[in-house]
């Protein structure tokens, strides 16, 4: 091919490409408004995550018991995806107008709000009132949901968790340690344990959030309950010195080796297992861990040997230790399109029965009222339930008010923060950049 014909062909190819590109542009401009029409669902499809087994097991047993009539009209059908790919799956399904009847609504509240804004999610507050079951939700759970989802009830409280530090009473006693009340005491206790060859904390760096929760815990204690709302509102930046201080404190724990080796490759189950087999003395976790603690097969140290303490106070800080980080687990919501009479029957049955069922079968605390009295499986469950009912003010977690990108970035970089490959300043800068880019 001579140079000239090659050029001519290239020009022609260029023209063709440009033409086709503009056509594609037109096509995309026309598309994207995929709003489907309402169609009666054939079953009560529920998209959940593989990691959470409590909700789907409890719903399945409800479908065979108290909710049998609802299930006969609209059979329950459970599907699961790994939590890490939930957000992708939801965005694709939402784009196709193919959201299931009930589904876990994304890892960050931001995604749920986006879905709600585009009208894909049922207005649960109105629906529950219509069904006459709005009094079946615990007020504390409702206020937590509203704090997370911009003042709206966008998800159902299948879980209601507070967070704090679970500790191994036996290890604490054997080493003459008291329950630490302040951050300095916590660090001193950790040092003492480390010196005796006991790993002070177990945490999953692969998931990242168990580490960033420590960061937000410190921030709430030192700067008060509005610490992260100020960041979301633009009144403060994560790169401000008092915020970086929190990252420095957490990084210092990692530097001293308090999380053990290779924290980046520890996944959630391994971290849980390390604590429940007595290899680590403390575990920062939510009250959902009670399900694992009550399970004698997993819990080798025995539920009686597990204690629960709030995140300790920071000396001179504005926060108080009775402000518990609380959440409603992975938000579960209902599609607006498929919410009809049969779906309503399911929802009101769940509202009336889920609370006692989950507590009785799984030792798991939900935000639904417990209508049939259930006796607690162990002391630590009672302790947590008492704490929940006594708790006056709730705070959120580190990424609660972040978008999807900042959440992912914060959680994937957390392991680096404690292993020392990312400095506290760098970490806060990276997350702040992702926040600002939203």
């Amino acid at each position, binding site marked *: 091919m001579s140079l000239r014909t090659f050029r001519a062909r290239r020009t022609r190819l260029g023209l063709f490409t440009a033409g086709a590109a503009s056509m*594609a542009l037109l096509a995309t401009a026309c598309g994207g408004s995929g709003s489907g029409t309402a169609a009666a669902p054939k079953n009560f499809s529920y998209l959940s995550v593989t990691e959470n087994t409590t909700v789907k097991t409890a719903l399945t047993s409800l479908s065979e018991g108290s909710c049998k009539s609802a299930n006969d009209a609209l059979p329950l059908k459970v599907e699961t995806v790994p939590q890490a790919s939930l957000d992708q799956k939801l965005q694709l399904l939402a784009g196709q107008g193919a959201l299931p009847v009930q589904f876990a609504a994304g890892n960050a509240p931001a995604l749920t709000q986006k879905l709600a804004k585009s009208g894909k999610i049922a207005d649960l507050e109105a629906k529950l009132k219509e069904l006459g079951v709005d009094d079946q939700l615990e007020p504390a759970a409702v206020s937590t949901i509203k704090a997370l989802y911009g003042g709206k009830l966008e998800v159902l409280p299948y879980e209601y968790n507070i967070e704090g530090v679970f500790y191994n009473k036996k290890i604490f006693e054997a080493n003459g340690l008291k329950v630490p009340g302040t951050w300095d005491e916590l660090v001193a206790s950790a040092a003492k344990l480390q010196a005796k060859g006991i790993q002070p904390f177990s945490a999953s760096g692969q998931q990242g959030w168990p580490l960033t929760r420590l960061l937000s815990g410190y921030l709430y204690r030192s700067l008060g309950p509005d610490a992260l709302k100020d960041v979301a509102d633009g009144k403060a930046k994560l790169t401000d010195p008092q915020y970086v201080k929190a990252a420095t404190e957490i990084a210092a724990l990692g530097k001293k080796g308090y999380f053990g080796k290779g924290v980046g490759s520890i996944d959630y189950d391994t971290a849980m297992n390390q604590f429940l087999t007595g290899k680590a003395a403390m575990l920062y976790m939510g009250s959902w861990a009670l399900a694992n603690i009550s399970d004698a097969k997993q819990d080798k140290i025995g539920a009686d040997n597990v204690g629960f303490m709030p995140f300790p106070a920071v000396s001179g800080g504005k926060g108080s230790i009775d402000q518990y980080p609380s959440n409603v687990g992975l938000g579960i919501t209902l599609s607006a399109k498929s919410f009809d009479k049969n779906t309503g029957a399911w929802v009101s049955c769940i509202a009336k029965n889920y609370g006692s069922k989950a507590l009785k079968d799984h030792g798991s605390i939900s935000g639904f009222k417990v209508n049939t009295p259930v006796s607690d499986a162990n002391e630590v469950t009672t302790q947590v339930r008492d704490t929940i009912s006594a708790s006056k003010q709730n705070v959120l977690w580190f990424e609660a008010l972040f978008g999807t990108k900042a959440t992912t970035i914060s959680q994937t970089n957390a392991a680096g923060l404690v292993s020392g490959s990312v400095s506290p300043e760098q970490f806060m800068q990276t997350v702040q950049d992702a926040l600002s880019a939203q």
Partner: protein
Amino acid sequence: MHRVLGDRRAIAILLGPALVVYSLIMLVPMVWSLGYSFTKGNSIDGFTGNGVADFSRLLDDPAVRHALWFTLKYAVVVTAGQVVAGYLLALLYVFFLKRASALVRTLVFFPVVLPTVAVGLLFQKFFQVAPQTGPVNSLLNAVGIDSIDFFGSSSSAFWVLVVMDIWRSMGFYAVLLFAGLVDIPEEVLESARLDGATGLRLVRHIVLPLSLPVLMSSLIFSINGTLKAFDSIVALTNGGPGNDTTPLTLYMFQTSFTYGDYGYGSTIAVLLTVVCLLVSLVVFRVSRRDLTEG
């Protein structure tokens, strides 16, 4: 025959169907994706025109620069490793093992047929430090070196990735290059030997030039494959620690599907296409010149 092939209608009938299929499944999606790169939004909110804002963002984005640098570094190192290891293996098959090479070929080829994710998990276990000490760290401990957290720092994670990908695919390149070496006529080699060329000199002056065409195609194969590497990286490090081992492909995937920013994701995809095109052109040019002169 000449009359048939000279007829425009005949050409249209013979080429038409293939061209239509090719356009539908290759060109249209590519152009479609290019269209998305001028928009902002995702499938939930809908798309709105965004002009060239995504392209200027591409130029300013440090994450893109990092991912591009990682992609190129990874492509160069892994391609070099794959082709060199494959070539050495092929030479081993042809000149040392001769006809007895079937068993070794099969063994070396075996990782190629394993699913990438399985290989990723295998290497994760192999190099892990916690909760159990992996074989590599056990070995280090045995000779008195402390365990290394291979996936905790970007440089060690990179090298584990390189080792894994070379191990996984060198069997394929070995077989490909083996086919090229077998093609070299025995008489040529024999006469070269009679002239006194043995060992390295034989390889340098006779074997290498004669196997150059197949070597070049391996190179193009390998460089294009490694520029688009995705599954092995996701399986082994998932882009971590932080985003230190995130190539353009993974960054594009995260941007579009995790962060819900389809427009910018498409722009990154366009960048990747351009990079692949440029690299292929360069390799092609170089190989053509070498063939006519060599």
